[in-house]
């Protein structure tokens, strides 16, 4: 940055920062008394959300596409039915909900009713999901019986044992719960972004296809458990192995030749965009558009102080922490790890001092893709399923985390991820939960405004 440019930067920067903060504050102040339910393609109940869903069919059992469904009650929202007539809301609060359909549409298709009231209780196994059918009014089936189309759960016999008072969460408890889920989410995000940042550090490439590596991990675990009949741990190992293999293969087939051809990193970045598109839709081609559940049972949840959780979640978090510690030890204590950091710092100097840069980059690609695959598995278990575009939706959060921590700094990515995870989940306390990712992305922009090198980045000329 030149000396002439910096005063302007200050002059523009401060009003803009205030504007953005004011905007965020406006969101925060705006009281959301009837907080919003989220319209989702497929809904799976978890400890923090219940589901109201159904398939809109006419009296001849033909799906009605494009009809508007309105939800009111504790939370409200609208959605339109998909091509196969399905619709779903993910709701946060327990209580009574009324689902309604435009009466003229109902009459036109010969439906007997146009509104239905159901009750949701997240902690109760048979009331965490309500299925509404307009073609047979009064048969608003509660529970999992009518929900066989969703992959995330099926007739698991375990009943949630959470006491009723933990479900009717007061605000303080919700704060703790959201903080907890934010940390879990942040840890998983950390697994992804540490790998992404290692690649950036050693090659200068921001990989847009890293999200697809995450999806690949989750889907491979699904293949392992549901198609090949493996136990979960074996499927996880299988998924990580496939992930590592794709890392090796794509480095050998695509990135190494491109580096040899001295193709610029911007050009390579567009190649990753192409790869991301191709992979994402290959997943959709082979696995379809719905959510694939890795584990087909709803685990027993229990309370731990102020939070409600379950064993798989804790286990996933534990694995994530162990792997992150392992990678840190690798980077700081082993010879290869030191070499990796040396390459990140200055590839030319590292090569001159006898480090095989290509070898290091190959290992970084393998490691990064394996970690992405692992995070995909853990995320799939934590979120009760993974779909073809799960990774793509998380890509921007990874970017936000990596930039926040400082591009190219390994430990920065972890801290950045935790912050992004916590902010994304905590922000749903004050803004509608379907906007929570937007808050994380807003942080990215604010960070660039105030400290473009990120928390751990070296202050240097970045422009």
């Amino acid at each position: 940055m030149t000396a002439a440019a910096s005063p302007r930067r200050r002059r523009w920067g401060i009003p803009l920062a205030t504007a953005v903060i004011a905007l965020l504050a406006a969101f925060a102040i705006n009281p959301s008394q009837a907080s919003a339910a989220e319209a989702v393609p497929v809904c799976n109940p978890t400890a923090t959300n219940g589901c109201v869903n159904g398939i809109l069919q006419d009296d001849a059992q033909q799906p009605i596409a494009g009809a508007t469904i309105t939800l009111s009650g504790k939370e409200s929202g609208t959605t339109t039915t998909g091509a196969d007539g399905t619709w779903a809301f993910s709701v946060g609060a327990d209580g009574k909900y009324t689902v309604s359909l435009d009466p003229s549409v109902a009459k036109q298709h010969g439906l007997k009713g146009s509104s239905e009231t159901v009750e949701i209780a997240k902690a109760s196994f048979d009331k965490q999901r309500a299925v509404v059918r307009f073609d047979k009014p009064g048969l608003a089936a509660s529970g999992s019986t009518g929900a066989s189309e969703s992959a995330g759960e099926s007739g698991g016999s375990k009943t949630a044992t959470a006491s009723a008072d933990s479900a009717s969460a007061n605000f303080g408890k919700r704060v703790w719960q959201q903080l907890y889920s934010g940390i879990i989410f942040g840890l998983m995000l950390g697994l992804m972004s540490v790998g992404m940042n290692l690649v950036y550090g050693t090659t200068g490439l921001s990989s847009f296809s890293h999200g697809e590596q995450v999806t690949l991990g989750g889907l491979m675990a699904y293949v392992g458990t549901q198609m090949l009949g493996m136990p979960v741990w074996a499927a996880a190992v299988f998924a990580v192995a496939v992930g590592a293999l794709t890392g090796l293969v794509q480095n050998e087939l695509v990135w190494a030749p491109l580096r040899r051809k001295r193709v610029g990193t911007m050009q390579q970045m567009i190649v990753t965009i192409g790869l991301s598109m191709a992979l994402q839709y290959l997943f959709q081609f082979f696995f379809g558009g719905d959510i694939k559940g890795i584990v087909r049972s709803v685990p027993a949840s229990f309370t731990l102080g102020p939070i409600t959780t379950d064993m798989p979640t804790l286990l996933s978090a534990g694995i994530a922490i162990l792997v992150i510690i392992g990678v840190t030890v690798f980077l700081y204590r082993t010879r290869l790890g030191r070499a990796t950091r040396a390459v990140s710092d200055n590839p030319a100097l590292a090569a001159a001092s006898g480090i095989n840069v290509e070898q290091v980059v190959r290992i970084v690609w393998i490691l990064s893709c394996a970690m992405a695959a692992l995070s995909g598995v853990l995320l799939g278990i934590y979120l009760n399923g993974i779909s073809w575009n799960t990774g793509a939706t998380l890509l921007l959060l990874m970017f936000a985390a990596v930039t926040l921590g400082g591009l190219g700094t390994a430990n920065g990515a972890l801290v950045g991820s935790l912050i992004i995870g916590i902010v994304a989940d905590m922000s749903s306390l004050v803004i509608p939960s379907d906007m929570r990712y937007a808050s994380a992305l807003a942080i990215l922009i604010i960070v660039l405004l105030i400290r473009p090198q990120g928390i751990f980045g070296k202050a240097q000329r970045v422009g």
Partner: protein
Amino acid sequence: MDFVTIISNALGELIAPTTAAYALAAIGLNIHFGMTGLMNMGQAGFMLLGAYGFAISQSMGANLFASVCCALALAVIYALLLGIPTLKLGPDYLAMVTLAAAEIVRIVGRSTAMTDVTGGSAGISPQDFTTQFESASPLPDGATTFLLWTYSNNIANSWWVRIVGWVLVAIAALLCWRWFHSPWGRVLKGIREDENAVRSLGKKVTVYKMQSLILGGVFGALAGILFVLPRSVQPDSLGRQVTFYTWTLLLLGGAATVLGPILGSCVLWVLLTFVKEVMRNTVPETFISSNQVEALGWVIVGVALMCLVIFRPQGLLGDRKELAFHA
């Protein structure tokens, strides 16, 4: 199975409003990337804001001119907001921020909290914002057949949208041709080639970059209006996929050329429609469903983008020496 239908469907894409919208968006992106070297990965954000600006002001009863101005004003403000923090940073940062900002626009637009304004994920249906545009048409009512194609004159996916769309594209291309050869355009090219050299000549690089970002964004907003006129405003139909499509067809036609974006858009959509139609009609439904055909179309675009960037980064019309890629 009917080969003539397949051909006429595919060729219909040649003049479709969507093709014109993508061409216009790519012309905007060409100002960003081809002329100035800015990696804007969020052109869809400009388009979505333009569409919202137009549709919402129309549904509130503004006249056509005011609505278009509203859309353009939104794009200008958005470009300023994006540009101020990022134009001084490296290209990675601009790419990430534009992508993130486009996603923020989409997430906020489809949020249930915004249902009163933007219609949430269901969007804004055409009868709320297209009536004025349709009634402004000088064409008589009814339908017209021209060569292979029959469309209604004024309603929905009409000849009127097509005419307006392609006239806009032509004007944009003419303007670009003027700008590319103006002293101003030469400064932008200088910035693309070597920012510091231009700065050392006393030009205010950031100001020029900002002008380029705003100008390209304005074309993006116009493209957004054109994109939603034959359908409805749906935030999810203007997601980041649209940005990636725009990049693909810009690189296909040739960045930093005047006609590249238009050629790219026509070629991409005609070929893609042709391939999809052939697959739909020849491969049995039990083997590949129509959803899967759609997915395969995407895979093709993705692979095409990769191959283009690796093997022919200058595209169909571009000049290899005038490559806009700089690491």
